[in-house]
């Protein structure tokens, strides 16, 4: 039932032109600079990433991207996991062309869609920070608490 609802909502999704400009992520499970460096180096190997600014004090990474690059959130997550750790917070800064947000209707940007959780109808315009709520983008406890059903090509986000 959920799936068919999602399918319908995908058909009904709003298409918007948007560009991911920045990602701020925090990694968990590490306390040493060698581990942090392993993540840093792994992230730098992604071709759409322009720069990685690592903060060794709080294990966060600020990623900026090449102009007009297709930013792949899952590839970023997999790089952190490949280094042996997990993403505990993932915030993307996205530049939206003006778009009207409707309740439970995803917004398609490029190859994937964003489904805004607990959001009333409103308009999106300009730079917005969205926090990803899908498995692997936040702590396991938070993911369980949110209890969101995963769907292919759709990221659950919170403004």
């Amino acid at each position, binding site marked *: 039932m959920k799936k068919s609802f999602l399918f319908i909502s995908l058909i009904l999704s709003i298409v918007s032109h948007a560009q991911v400009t920045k990602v701020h992520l925090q990694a968990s*499970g*590490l306390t*040493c600079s060698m581990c942090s460096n*392993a993540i*840093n180096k*792994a992230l730098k*190997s992604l071709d759409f990433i322009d720069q990685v600014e690592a903060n*060794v004090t709080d294990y966060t990474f600020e990623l900026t991207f090449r102009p007009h690059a297709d930013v792949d959130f899952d590839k970023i997550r997999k790089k952190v996991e490949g280094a042996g750790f997990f993403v*505990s917070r993932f915030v993307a800064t996205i530049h939206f062309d003006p778009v009207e947000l409707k309740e439970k209707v995803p917004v398609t940007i490029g190859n994937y869609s964003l489904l805004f959780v607990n959001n009333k109808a409103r308009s999106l315009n300009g730079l917005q920070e969205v926090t990803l709520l899908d498995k692997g983008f936040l702590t396991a406890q938070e993911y369980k608490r949110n209890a969101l059903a995963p769907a292919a090509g759709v990221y659950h986000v919170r403004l």
Partner: protein
Amino acid sequence: MKLLISFLSILLSISACSQELFAQTEPASTRAKGSITFRMDHTLMDEVNTSSINYHMIPELMFGLSKKLMVSGNVFFSNRSEVFRKEGGSFYARYRFLSRDALQKHFRMAGFGRISYNNSDIHQEEINTYGHNTGYEMGIVATQLLRKVALSASAAYAKAMDNGGNNKFLYGRENSRAVNYTLSAGKLMLPKAYTDYRQTNLNLMCEFLGQVNTGSGRSYLDVAPSLQLIFNSQARVDIGYRKEISATLVRTAPNGFFVRLEYNFFNAF
């Protein structure tokens, strides 16, 4: 045991940092995917009742195949047969099957195995698949990292076979199996706070390494304190001393120094 408890309490009472890159054992964490590590182990062990020093050199290459699996291969060299020569090698693999990670802490478990070949003469009852015996070993390891302190424990089953070059296992088939157990603690002492990848890290480690022969029931227990430096978040030097606390097993050279040099190449493949 008293020594262990007092050491742990000292370790936990110093408010600094931790590491789990132990000098004598491996943690449950594996290597970064796509990384290659070159490691060079040296041990200088004092041979009992003689003035000779047994020097073992073990170069090793380690590969992070996936986020959960690492494999490595190494070659054993030693001067035990009067001349310094190659004596064999081993393959090792470790698979992390449990991760409970949170901010600045984790609990992880892994299974590991080693298969070894050695053609040196068998000169001690102790079973050691890392440079002495042909055989295999498999076990599990659990590691808890809590901010700056890391604690790790492992248990493994080891089986010795006849060594190559017609060097038989001398102590009887029934005494060719043993249980190895380890307990390791590490603490990051410096830097007090991270600001940069280029800061040199100083870790203090203390490890307890034991073996019980399942046939004879004879055993040993060693302590191995060590000091570790990590440079540029990429290179590592460990220096330590391994000392027998108690033993009923026949051992040739239980006490001595060890030095490990290691360099990590990230995104190598």
